[in-house]
């Protein structure tokens, strides 16, 4: 059995679901950000798989590179915010940061 487009898409879907699951269940802010990386990279797998197997143009590869760069920028800002949270609260447990009422 050769590996085809479907395998990549299923892998991406599984990664996406794991990412969302991680974001929803983790308490540590850094682990939430790691879940986010899974979500973004699942989109990357989709882009590259479609570009390779669909016989499509270069756009898929370009898109993946942009997503990688933006993920880095976003996580840099997010980590700075988490650091600031740590300075104010002395912990980064997302569930206990609830001064603003729900």
């Amino acid at each position, binding site marked *: 059995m050769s590996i085809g487009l479907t395998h990549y898409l299923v892998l991406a879907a599984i990664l996406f679901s794991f990412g969302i699951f991680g974001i929803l269940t983790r308490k540590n802010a850094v682990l939430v950000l790691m879940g986010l990386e899974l979500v973004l990279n699942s989109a990357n797998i989709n882009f590259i798989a*479609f570009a390779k197997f669909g016989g499509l143009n270069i756009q898929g590869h370009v898109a993946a590179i942009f997503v990688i760069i933006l993920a880095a920028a976003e996580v840099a800002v997010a980590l700075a915010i988490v650091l600031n949270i740590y300075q104010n609260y002395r912990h980064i447990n997302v569930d206990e940061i609830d001064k603003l009422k729900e």
Partner: protein
Amino acid sequence: MPQLDIFLENLKISVGMFIPEFILTATFILAILFDLIFKKSRNISGYVTLLGFIVTGIFLYLQVGTNYRAFADLLVIDDFGSFFKFLILITSFLIVLMSLLSKELYSEHRKLGEYYSMIAGMTFGMFLLCGASNLIMIYLAIETMSISSYILAGYTKEVKRASEASLKYVIYGAISSGIMIFGISLIFGLTGHLNLFEINKFFATNDVDIFALGISSLMIVAGFGYKISAVPFHFWTPDVYEGAPVTITAYLSVASKAAGFAVLLRFLKVTFIDSIPGYDSIWTTLSGIDWNFVIAVLSVLTMTLGNLVAVWQTNMKRLLAYSSIAHAGYLLMGVAVLNDTGAASVLIYFLVYMLMNLGAFYIVMLISNKIGSEDIEDYNGLGYRAPVLGVCMTLFLISLTGLPPTAGFIGKLFVFSAVINAGYLWLAVIGVLNSVVSLYYYVKIFKNMYLKDVESQKPALEYSAPAIILLMVFAIPTLVFGIFYGPIVSWANNSVHIFLGN
């Protein structure tokens, strides 16, 4: 070689069309540089930013009337985009003026160079979003504006509420943009293109699997819905609005919503609407998704939840947050009808919403400058302690409810008439019922200001002349546009044609 020639020609013209964005980039850099050079003056980068916005506005004005697909279809320059760019630019300008008067930002000897340059950076991102016609460009522009706004929301970083707000904002924002990029990758797989015009051509000639298309385009709309705080994606709004500095709350509630609506309208129109010339004012949908129904359901959920929850709020910023969710619902009604009248009503409503909402937040900021509180209970007797503010607040609240003779009435009138003309009577009825609910919580503020603590012994609140002049900049147009609404209506009608590239 002719291909290369065409490409270079396009690039040359595109760079000329990109001047407003270039100036914003220069403003971004100069604001930081001036802050570093003139260490003594804390306002200098604010003045640089104001100047940059004025120059941007001049070049933006020179662009009005052109229709061009710039940078190989990455961006479209058209009057629809220009309208929203003007709206965003005016909002940014007023927000910088408000920030110069804010006590909250200037406490703790904070450096404000980065604050003003981040506002310029966010404006840049929103400008790109207004013109983006490529899915990757849309994603990049949303991220550019979001990353700036995460920082701005937590700018007062020693305040616990603000840092919590920025954490919640960054997590929700990152999830929604992650879902959006996954949707984009699926659309790319389905159609083989990222360019909206090419996707439209693909839909016009091919049949697409409706289930996959529905899932992926809903994922993309979720990303936009997050920006405009439509209901299933609104969870961040109250917390972020309450925790962030008032100026940034006002900015998020107007400018980033404007950019979100610009991109939502352009995405729906360019991608899913049959683009045969001559028929494009009717907006026939391709591809089998009932967008009218989807957006109408979003709209009903958004305004109903926004208004019903706002009734229970005791914090002014939180109340205005829910009220801004409700207003997003009214605006979505205009989008749901999917025709040019509906789109024009969205533009009119947005112009009006900008004035009254910024005005209301400005008064919240002025009052919290003096009494250090945003609690509605602390507004007791303020109508007597600060008469000018009381009268103006009443004006903005009447306008937000949508009663004549204010501009808010004109906005609601055009939205509701567009909805009824398109045959969605049930949607209009729900909208009117919601306006009635909104009257209750707006009047509650009025009641606290005028009918409670009437014999107050507390001292009157004094405000400087610049603060009052800026207040008049919001209040007078809110009143005047309620009577002379001709100019805004004709501007909106001229700007409503989204360039389809024919």
